[in-house]
C-alpha cells in the first residue's frame, strides 16, 4: 500500500512537468517559478523547523554514554564516546555526522532454536546498512557539488577536481564510452545502487517493511526519479548543456531567463528536485538538521561535575524529615535511633 501510494505520487510528479512543458510550454513556470518557490520553501522551512526545535530547552543532560566515563585519573576514559567537555563532543559529533558512527555499530539478530529447544542467539556482523547509507549520502554530496559547474561561472576549481576524481572510471569499461558519450561518473552509479539497496532492504527485511510508511518510500522514489532523469539526460537523451547552464546561471544570479530548446527531460529533472527540496522541511529528511541537535549525542557527560540548569524548574513538595519523624518518633526511640524531638 505504502509503496503503491508513494510510487503513484512520484509518477504524478514526473508527469506534471512532462505535460506542463511538453504540451503547454510552461517553461517559465517549471524553469523559474517552481525552483524559486521550492528553494524558498526549503530555506524558510528548515529555519522555522530548527528554530522550533531550538525553542524547546534541553532541561537535563542525557547523553548516551557509549564508553567509560571520566573518573579516577588512572582509569582510561572514552574521550569520544563519553566526552566530558566540549572538545570531545565536537569530535563525537563529527564522527557521527561524517562517518555515521552509531550506525556502524549495527548488528543483526540471528535467532535459532537448537535441537534441544534452547534458543541460540547471535548478533551477526551487519555493515550493509551503514555502507549503503554512507555511500548514498556521500554520492549525493558529490553530485550536488559537481552540479556547481552548471550554476557558477567560472567553474570553481574544486568542482573540476571532484569531476576528475569521480570520473576516473572513464576507461571505456562501458561500451557507452565508445559511442562518444561522456565518461561515467562513479557517484551516479553508487547513488543509484545505494538508493536501490535501501529500497530493496526496506521491502526485503520484514521488520523494516512493517514499520515503513509512505513517507519512507516517497523520498526514495523521488531520488530514484531524480537520478534516473539525470542519468538519462547525461548519457542517453542529450540535452543542450549550454542552454541548461544559461538557465542555471540565470537562476543563480537572480536574472532568470528561459533559453531556447532544452528538452522536457530537463524540466522533469528540475521539477523532481524542486519537489524534493520543498518536501524536505516537512519530512523525515529533516534528520539532516536534527542530528546536530540530538541531546543524546551533542552533550557532554559532566553533570555530576557541573550543575546544569533546567529553565522551567519549579519547586516540588517532598515528604520532610520532620513529617517522617512525627510519624515514627516512638518507634525510632524504641529502636535506639536518634530523634530531633523527644516524645512527650
Amino acid at each position, binding site marked *: 500500500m505504502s509503496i503503491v501510494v508513494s510510487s503513484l505520487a512520484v509518477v504524478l510528479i514526473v508527469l506534471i512537468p512532462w505535460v506542463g512543458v511538453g504540451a503547454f510550454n510552461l517553461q517559465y513556470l517549471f524553469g523559474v517559478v517552481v525552483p524559486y518557490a521550492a528553494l524558498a520553501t526549503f530555506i524558510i522551512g528548515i529555519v522555522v523547523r530548527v528554530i522550533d526545535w531550538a525553542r524547546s530547552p534541553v532541561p*537535563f543532560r542525557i547523553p548516551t554514554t557509549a564508553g567509560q566515563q571520566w573518573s579516577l585519573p588512572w582509569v582510561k576514559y572514552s574521550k569520544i564516546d563519553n566526552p566530558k567537555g566540549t572538545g570531545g563532543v565536537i569530535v563525537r559529533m563529527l564522527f557521527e555526522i561524517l562517518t555515521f558512527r552509531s*550506525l556502524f555499530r549495527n548488528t*543483526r539478530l540471528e535467532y535459532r532454536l537448537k535441537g534441544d529447544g534452547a534458543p541460540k542467539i547471535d548478533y551477526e556482523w551487519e555493515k550493509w*546498512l551503514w555502507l549503503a547509507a554512507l555511500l548514498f549520502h556521500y554520492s549525493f554530496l558529490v553530485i550536488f557539488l559537481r552540479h556547481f559547474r552548471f550554476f557558477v561561472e567560472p567553474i570553481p576549481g574544486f568542482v573540476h577536481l571532484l569531476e576528475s576524481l569521480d570520473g576516473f572510471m572513464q576507461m571505456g569499461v562501458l561500451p557507452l564510452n565508445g559511442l562518444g558519450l561522456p565518461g561515467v561518473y562513479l557517484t551516479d552509479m553508487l547513488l543509484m545502487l545505494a538508493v536501490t539497496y535501501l529500497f530493496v532492504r526496506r521491502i526485503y527485511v520484514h521488520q523494516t517493511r*512493517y514499520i515503513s510508511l509512505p513517507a519512507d518510500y516517497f523520498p526514495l522514489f523521488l531520488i530514484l526519479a531524480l537520478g534516473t532523469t539525470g542519468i538519462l539526460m547525461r548519457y542517453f537523451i542529450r540535452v543542450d548543456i549550454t542552454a541548461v547552464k544559461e538557465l542555471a546561471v540565470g537562476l543563480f544570479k537572480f536574472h532568470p531567463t528561459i533559453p531556447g530548446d532544452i528538452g522536457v527531460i530537463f524540466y522533469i529533472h528540475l521539477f523532481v528536485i524542486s519537489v524534493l527540496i520543498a518536501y524536505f522541511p516537512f519530512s*523525515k529528511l529533516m534528520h539532516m538538521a536534527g542530528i546536530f541537535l540530538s541531546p543524546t549525542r551533542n552533550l557532554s557527560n559532566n553533570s*555530576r561535575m557541573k550543575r546544569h540548569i533546567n529553565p522551567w524548574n519549579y519547586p516540588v513538595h517532598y515528604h520532610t524529615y520532620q513529617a517522617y519523624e512525627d510519624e515514627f518518633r516512638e518507634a525510632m526511640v524504641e529502636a535506639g535511633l536518634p530523634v530531633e524531638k523527644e516524645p512527650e
Partner: protein
Amino acid sequence: MAKDPKAGETAKINHTPPLMEGWMDTPVDIREGIYCYGAKEKNLEAVDMPNARDWNPAEEDWQLPDDWEKVIDDGFRLRLDRFRSFKLFMDICVRCGACADKCHFFIGSGDPKNMPVLRAELIRSVYRKKYTAGGKLFGKLAGARDLTLDVLKEWWYYLYQCTECRRCSLFCPYGIDTAEVTIIGRELTNLIGLNTDWISAPVANCNRTGNHLGIQPHAYKDMMDFFVDEIEDITGIRVEPSFNRKGAEILFITPSGDVFADPGTYTCMGYLMLFHYLQSQGLDITWSTYASEGGNFGYFTSHEMAKRLNAKMYAEAKRLGVKWILGGECGHMWRVLNQYMDTFNGPADFLEEPVSPITGTKFENAKGTKMVHLVEFTADLIKHNKLKLDPSRNDHLKVTFHDSCNPSRGMGFFEEPRYVINAVCNNFYEMPPQTIREQTFCCGSGAGLNAGENMELRMRGGLPRANAVRYVKEKYGVNMLSCICAIDRAVFPTLMDFWVRDVGVTGVHEMVANALVFEGENERTTDLRGEPLAGMEDDDNV
C-alpha cells in the same frame, strides 16, 4: 499469574511481523503475563496523583476521567515545549530499523510493537495527527492516527513494556532514545491515573517511609542488627553501623532492595564489613532511615515525582551535616544521580567536594553532585593498597559481570567494577562483547517491571541476557553472575532458574567482603552465604 511460562515454549519466537496486516490495523491485545496490575487508589492518593481509583487493565472500563483527551493533549503540548529531546525524536526518525532488533523485549517476544521504533511510532502517529500539517491533511497516509481509547490502551501496554534501558539509542544513527519517549509517554499516562501498581506502591512507600518496601525505621534497624549478627557468626568481627547520626562525615545511601531481599542482603553485609574495616583508617559514615532508598521509582512515573523522591537525599545530608554522600550499588539510582540530581535538587553547596578520607583522592568527577559511587570509592582504595584482600576466598566462584543498563548507557561506568572484581576474585570471565558494556542487555525487569504477574514478559525480556550467561557457563563453567544493581540482584535469580540454572547472583561488594582480611577475624570456612569456601568443602564433616 494464570499460567507459568515454560522455557521451551517461551523460546519459540517468531521475529517476522505479519506480511499483509499493518500495525495500525492490529488492535492491542492486553495479555496476561505481559502487563502489571493497575495502580491502586491508595498509592496514587498518597502522593496526590490524579484519578486515583482501583482499576483493572484487563477490564473494558479503565475509569478514565471524562476529559482525558484534553488532559493528554495539554500534557503533550507542554512536554513538546519542555523537552527538545521529545520534540526532535518525534520528527527525525527515518525508520531505518537499526534499532528494531536491539530491544530485548522484541528479541524475547517477537511482538513487532516491541521494536523500539514502533514503540515510539505508537506515540508519533498521534503526534503527527495532532500537531503536524501533513498528519492532519493526509491522516493514515502520513502515518497519523487519532488518539482513541484503544490507542491509549496500546500506549499504556507498550510503554510499560519498555525497561527504559536505552539500548536502542546506542544504535540509532541520530541517537533517538526511545527510553526518553517512553519516559515522557509514561508521564502522559500518569496524568490520567494510568500507571502500574508495581511502580506506584514503591513511590508511595518511598515517599512516606523513605524506601520502596515501606519499611519503617525500627524495622530497618532490626534488619541491620540481623546482618551484624550474621557477620559476627561468619567472621567473628562485630561491625557497628550508625544510623541518622548527625555530624558524620559521609552519608551512605543504597537501594533498600539490598536490605530486604536475597541475595542483595549479602551485598549489604558487604557494605557493612567494608565500612567497619575502614573505620580504623578514618572512615566516618552513617546510614539514614529517612533517606533509606537509592532507587527512585518516581523516575518511572514522571520527572516531577523523581525529583520529589530524590530531594530527600540532599535534605538528609543537610540535616545531618555530612560533607558528602556515598551511594551503593544500584542501577537507575545512578542514572538519576548522574543525569538529573544536581539539576533537580542542586546546588549542593552545603556539601563539600568529596575526598576519600583514606586515600586523599579527590573525586573531581563528582564535585557537582557531591556523590561518589561506592564501587569507584572501593576501586580507589584497592588502587592505593588500602585493603588487604585474599581473592582465593572467592575461588569457589567463576564470575561473570552484568553491566546494568543505567550505569552503562546513562553514566559510562565500566572499568571500576571490573577493576574491583579482578582484585577480589581469581576467576573472571566476560560475556560476549555484543552483550556487555555499552551494548549490555537489560535484565528485562527494570523500570518498574519486576512484578510477579508479568513473569512471562520478564522471562522474555531477560532472554538475551540469560543467553549470554549461558554461553559463558557452557564455555568456562561460570556459576556466579555479578552486578551492581539491586533490581538485577532481585530479578536475576528467577531469570537464571528459568533459562540457565545453577548460576548464582551477587553484588560486587559481597565478593569484596568475602575477600577482605580483617585483623583478628576467625578463619573463614564459608562465604557470607554460609557456602563452604574452596578447599573447605570437607571441613564440615571432619
